[in-house]
């Protein structure tokens, strides 16, 4: 059902590096989970028109005014400096990332 190439493809889509020695381990465990969830095939869902409706009658979309009020838009967010200090690499007040385009 799942081969090693598919495992590597999924890992790439997930931006997760996996070693050659790990491919088989992930292949086997992904396959066993997918085999387990395959039992959903036997459920008739032809009456269900849409997946919307999980929420009951009491759940409604929560709307708010689209205002520029800083607190309601962003919450009680901390200082910029605190957040910047969390970044692994910064330069001149910016978060630094690796080069994307080759010269």
């Amino acid at each position, binding site marked *: 059902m799942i081969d090693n190439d598919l495992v590597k493809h999924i890992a790439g889509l997930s*931006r997760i590096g996996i*070693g050659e020695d790990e491919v088989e381990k992930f292949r086997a465990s992904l396959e066993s989970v997918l085999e387990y*969830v395959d*039992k*959903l095939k036997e459920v008739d869902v032809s009456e269900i028109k849409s*997946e919307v409706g*999980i929420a009951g009658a009491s759940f409604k979309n929560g709307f708010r005014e689209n205002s520029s009020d800083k607190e309601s838009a962003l919450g009680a967010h901390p200082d910029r400096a605190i957040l910047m200090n*969390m970044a*692994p690499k910064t330069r001149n007040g910016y978060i630094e990332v690796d080069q994307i385009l080759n010269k």
Partner: protein
Amino acid sequence: MSLINDTQKKIKDREVSARDAVKEYLNVIKEKDSEIHAYLDINEEEAMMQADSVDSKVDNGEDIGLLGGVTIAVKDNILARGFKCTAGSKMLENYRAPYDATVIRKLREAGAIILGKTNLDEFAMGSSTENSAYGPTKNPCDLSRVPGGSSGGSAAAVAAGMCALSLGSDTGGSIRQPAAFCGTVGFKPTYGAVSRYGLIAMASSLDQIGPIGASVDDVKAVFNVIRGKDKLDATSFDMDFRSDKESAKRFEDPISELSEKIKDLRVGVPKEYFGKGIDDKVKEAVERAIKKYEENGVKVEEVSLPHTEYGLAVYYIIMPSEVSANLARYDGIRYGQRAKADSLFDTYEETRRYGFGEEVRRRIMLGTHTLSSGYYDAYYLKAQKVRVLIKQDFVNVFSKVDVIMTPATPSVPFKFGDKSKDPVLMYLSDVFTVGASLAGLPAITLPCDWVKEGGSELPISFQIIGREGGDFEILEIAKLYENL
């Protein structure tokens, strides 16, 4: 029995100072936690400062708040200023919470004292805490057994007397299952009843914060403080729409007699929760607990939730799908660890390869697959539709009964290593808790028996599931059990 009432009375009557009360808990932690490993981070100084502020309020004759002097431990996926927040992952090893989650703000405002942060399966993914990057937590009832998970540290801390109460998060059973394994009370509120602002997201259509405590009164008191609409969490709402409900009123009335309270109460017992895969000991203990209600005049009837057997399969499609989206944020750019690599793509891959443990990587990959082009309809869309059927099952049953009673777990706590090699076997630990999660319903687990096994006493718990917004109803019905 209520630890909160006892503590508060003693502090208000000046039998003990908040400072001494906190010191006592810190002493228990020093004595026991090197063995149990429930805590990942403790802040003594901060706890003492909070205690002193409670004591000075007592001195000045001021109100100490609903939770004044009450010690609380917090699962390490909920942000609390002054503490690290690792989510049990290497990815966030040095991450310090830059702000308080809404639940933490509310607890502090009510006078609660945050003692520390508790261990969990990495990013709340697991049923045993064996997936924590910082080593497993041990079950205080038997150190060779798991405390359950993912809120294993929170449940163990309460069970070992290392805090009065704790907060956990529940996505498919992560509050209720560990609470059951440690012989404590665990409560998952209705989806949206408690704000999740400041909770590290796992699966957003399922995640819910809730309390773990030694008694129903205690978890109820904490729930009362943390619940309510929060403008910082658009999925949160106020429960007040239920206050006019007759049954809720009946249970909230403190003077009505027990017999009056349970008159007309109808309990449904779903036959699908007592079939194969459940330990005989667990089954018998839970049946005895339900019998106790019946002997006291409660009407008990068998009901059917026909799609129960598909719950776990639905869960293991929807949850990883949401996980794959939510955990995309851990890219090593804005916070957390960043691996050194030659290109940005490689930086992502290497950061996530070394930052995430095996189970987290498996679930992200699983969810990426079930959402990917060509597989979406067969997996994700199908699972969402079956989820609607599961929800409808509950709606149908709640037109006949007030609450549903089931076992909390299929077995007593298992030993370390017993299930960690086989993901599907581990996933089956949540078979009785995922239903309420998928349907967004409130549910509580509480101990109903203890069995001897290999020289230790192990707890068995049952679960009460309520209708949407029926949080107080199930809390009161659970409280009745303590008095039967």
